[in-house]
Structures are given as structure tokens and as C-alpha cells.
């Protein structure tokens, strides 16, 4: 096992960058939520990698677990909001979901 730490960090960074691109460019609200999942996964890879190579103990893994739990909660509420918006306007284009502006 001699995979250096930066390799894991690069994977996490690329996951984060791709998630950022997804969040910024998607117009489908479900697609935007998928991008958020990618970003959280990139952060999680960094947490676990730093814990194994630098920190020691299990703090990083516990933090990753809490991130997973909160991501599940975020996905449930987010998708419920998407369904509610869809019932309201028959569209989940994030550029058309500007009801609160008026």
C-alpha cells in the first residue's frame, strides 16, 4: 500500500470540480442535486484520506459518516422540494423556479 496521499486528494479535487460544473451548468433541479452529491463525496474522500495519512484515529471517518447522513437528509428534502415545484409548475427547470421573486 504505497499510494501517496496527493493521489487521493487529486481524486477528491476532481470530484469536487466536476460537481461544481454540474451545479453551475445544469438546468434540471435533479441534476443540480446530483452535483451536490458529487461535491460532498469529494469532500468525504479528502476527510478519510487525511485521517489515514495525517491525522490518525477515527475522527475523519466519523466526520465522513456525519456528512453522509446530512447528504441523505439534504437529498430527501431537496427532492421533496423538487416534486412540490413540479406539481406547481409542471417543470423543474431551475431558471423558471422564481416564484418567490414576485
Amino acid at each position, binding site marked *: 500500500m504505497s499510494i501517496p496521499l496527493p493521489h487521493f486528494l487529486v481524486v477528491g479535487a476532481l470530484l469536487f470540480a466536476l*460537481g461544481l460544473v454540474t451545479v453551475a451548468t445544469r438546468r434540471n433541479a435533479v441534476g443540480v442535486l446530483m452535483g451536490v452529491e458529487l461535491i460532498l*463525496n469529494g469532500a468525504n474522500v479528502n476527510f478519510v484520506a487525511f485521517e489515514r495519512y495525517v491525522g490518525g484515529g477515527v475522527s475523519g*471517518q466519523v466526520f465522513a459518516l456525519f456528512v453522509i447522513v446530512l447528504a441523505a437528509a439534504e437529498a430527501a428534502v431537496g427532492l421533496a422540494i423538487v416534486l412540490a415545484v413540479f406539481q406547481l409548475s409542471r417543470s423543474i427547470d431551475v431558471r423558471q423556479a422564481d416564484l418567490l421573486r414576485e
Partner: protein
Amino acid sequence: MNALNVRTLAAWAAGSALVVVFLAGMYALAVAPAARDGLAAGPGGFGLPELLFYLLSAVTLAGAAAVAFVRNILHSAVGLLAALLGAGSLYVLLSADFVAVTQLLVYVGGVLVLVLFAVMLTSRITEVTVSNRSFGLFGGLLLLVAAAPVLVTVALVTPWPAAPPGPLAPSTAAIGDGLLTRWLLPFEVASLILLATLVGAVAIARKELKSDD
């Protein structure tokens, strides 16, 4: 071949080009110098864990690229499946077995099914151009080119105080100990958040009943 097929092909070509560039860069930056200096583990200099790591990161990043660039939202969900599975297997390589299993159960078993349900319930998935329009491949690639090199350079250049890791060992017992002692309060707050989420999601997503007033 119509314009849509050309766009799909371009997205797939961009994704595979990204993976190829990543693998080539990894080889040039790390594997080749390590093999030259004799730092790599194993008699071959490039053992099974390294091979697995590069394969799994390629799967992860290919899935993430599919999420970002594929036009059909259903294909994006399949890409998300690949990305989540790949990240979970990276946790195994990092000696985080419990986190890996949790990733499998919560993300792949729960969140992904939820996402698939939302896709099926909301978008007109037969109309591919409607279901997953984006602001354009050009803008997305521009943002990627702006963000990824900075993060990758920071990850590679910074002198992290990294110690050589110990052998792979199960960590579930230590995590259980920690959750019931040091992280007891966050653990309980997380349960409370999950309960509130459950109630809130049902309250938001259910259809409003018409009241007779």
C-alpha cells in the same frame, strides 16, 4: 447523424479524454518517478493496490464526468451510481471499511433510488433534449478548466505532513466507541435532524388536500 448524436458523442469523447488525461498525468507525475526511484511497493514496483486504485479512480471520475456532461438525465443517474460506487471502494483502500459500507447502504441504496424516483416522477425523460438541458458544454468545460487545475496543483504541490500509513485494519469498533462517547451529542443531533427531515419531506412532497371552505 443528427445534431443531438453529435453532441452526445462530443460529451462522451470529452469524458473519456478527461479520464485518459488524468491517467496519463498520474503516470507521468507519480508512477514513473516512483518506479525509477524504487519507492513503489512490491517486487514489480506497481502492485495490485496501485492498479486497483487507478482503475477505481478512473471509474469514479468517468461517472462524475457523465453526471456533469451527459445530456440524458437517466444516464447521469447511472454515472452517479458509478461515481458513488467508485468513491466507496476508495474508502476500502483507505482502510475505512465502515464508511465504505455506509456509503453503499445510504448513497447507493437510498439516495440514488430517491434520485431515480425523482427523475422518473418529474422529467419527461423520453424527450432527451428537454430532460437535461444545460447552459452548454462550452461553459461547463470552461469552469472545469478554471477550477480543476488549481485544486489539483494545490493537492500535488503542498508538502503535506503525511506519515506512511499502517496496515489495513478494521475501524468499526473504534467508530462505535467514538459515536457513544466523544461524538455522542452530534450523533443524537444527527438522529434529530433525520427525524425532522423525514417529517419535513413528507409534509412538502404530499399533495395538498382541498379543504371545503
